[in-house]
C-alpha cells in the first residue's frame, strides 16, 4: 500500500496542513504519526524546533467492503442469486459470511471443496485489485463452526488412539488452516506431540505419543490413517 511520507512545519498543525495539501485530501482521510511535536523556543529565538510528522492516506475501508461484496456476489451469482453478504473488516483474516439458507449446501460443496475454491479465487482477485489487503475467509451457514468442532473431535480421538496403542497416528491431508486447528486442539495435551508432514496439498498432521511402545510386532513408525 502507500508509504508514509514525512512533513515538517512550525507546529504540528502546519505540518498536517502540508500533508493534506500533498495528498490532496482532508485531515480525517490521513493516518498521522507525530515524530516530534516541535517547540517555538524562548521568544521564538532559542531552541526553535520544527514539528515533524509522518502521514499516509488512509485506506478507504468502505470502498474495500464494496469491492469484496462485489467480487463475492459475482462469483456466487449462478448458485445464489440473492445472497446477503456480511463483512467483518476488523477481523484478520476478514470474515465474509454468505447468508443464504437455501443454497448454502451448494456453496459449501462436497468436503467443503466449493467454498475453498471460492475463497481462493476471491483472494486472488482481491490481491490483484487491492494490493496489501489481508485475506478473506468465507463462511456460510454454520459451516466453519461445525467444521472446527469436527476437526477438534477428530484430533482428540486420534490422540487417544495414539496414546493407547503407543503408535503414530495421522490425519487425512489437510489445508494449512485445518492443520493449525489440529495443532491447537492438542497443544495442551502433553502426552502427544503434533507435527506436519508431506508436500504441498498432501500435507497431513502426525500425532506422536511421547511414550512409544517398544518391541512392536509391526514395523516401527508405521502410520495409521484415520
Amino acid at each position, binding site marked *: 500500500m502507500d508509504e508514509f511520507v514525512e512533513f515538517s512545519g512550525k507546529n504540528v498543525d502546519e505540518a498536517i496542513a502540508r500533508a493534506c495539501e500533498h495528498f490532496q485530501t482532508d485531515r480525517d482521510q490521513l493516518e498521522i504519526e507525530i515524530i516530534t511535536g516541535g517547540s517555538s523556543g524562548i521568544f521564538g529565538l532559542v531552541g526553535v524546533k520544527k514539528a515533524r510528522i509522518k502521514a499516509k492516506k488512509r485506506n478507504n475501508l468502505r470502498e474495500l467492503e464494496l469491492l469484496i461484496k462485489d467480487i463475492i456476489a459475482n462469483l456466487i*451469482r449462478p448458485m445464489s442469486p440473492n445472497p446477503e453478504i456480511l463483512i467483518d473488516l476488523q477481523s484478520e483474516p476478514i470474515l465474509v459470511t454468505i447468508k443464504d439458507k437455501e443454497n448454502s449446501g451448494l*456453496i459449501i460443496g462436497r468436503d467443503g471443496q466449493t467454498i475453498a475454491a471460492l475463497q481462493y479465487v476471491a483472494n*486472488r482477485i482481491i490481491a490483484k485489485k487491492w494490493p496489501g489487503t489481508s485475506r478473506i475467509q468465507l463462511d456460510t451457514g454454520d459451516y466453519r463452526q461445525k467444521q472446527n468442532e469436527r476437526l477438534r473431535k477428530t484430533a482428540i480421538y486420534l490422540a487417544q488412539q495414539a496414546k493407547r496403542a503407543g503408535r503414530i497416528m495421522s490425519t487425512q491431508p489437510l489445508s494449512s488452516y485445518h492443520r493449525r486447528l489440529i495443532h491447537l486442539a492438542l497443544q495442551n495435551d502433553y502426552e502427544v506431540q503434533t507435527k506436519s508432514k508431506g508436500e504441498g*496439498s498432501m500435507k497431513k498432521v502426525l500425532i506422536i505419543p511421547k511414550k512409544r511402545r517398544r518391541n512392536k510386532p509391526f514395523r516401527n513408525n508405521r502410520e495409521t490413517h484415520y
Partner: protein
Amino acid sequence: MLKDLIEYIAKSLVDNPDAVSVSEIEGEQTSVIELKVAKEDLGKVIGKQGRTARAMRTILGAASTKAQKRAVLEILE
C-alpha cells in the same frame, strides 16, 4: 450465465482483460466453455500447479449443478 462467470473470473485475474475471450459450445447434456487469454496471462488463469484452473472448474461445477447441466472448462493455449 456460466460463460459470464468464467469471463468475470478470468478478466479479474489477468493483466490484459481485453484479450480474454470466452465461448460456450453447447451440447445436448454437456457444454464446453473455452477460455482464451493473452499468452503472458496463461499462468494467471492456470495458477501454481493448476490451482487456479482447478478452483475455476470446481466453482463452474457448482454453478452448473444449479443450472442443471454439465459444463467443462477448457483453457486454450
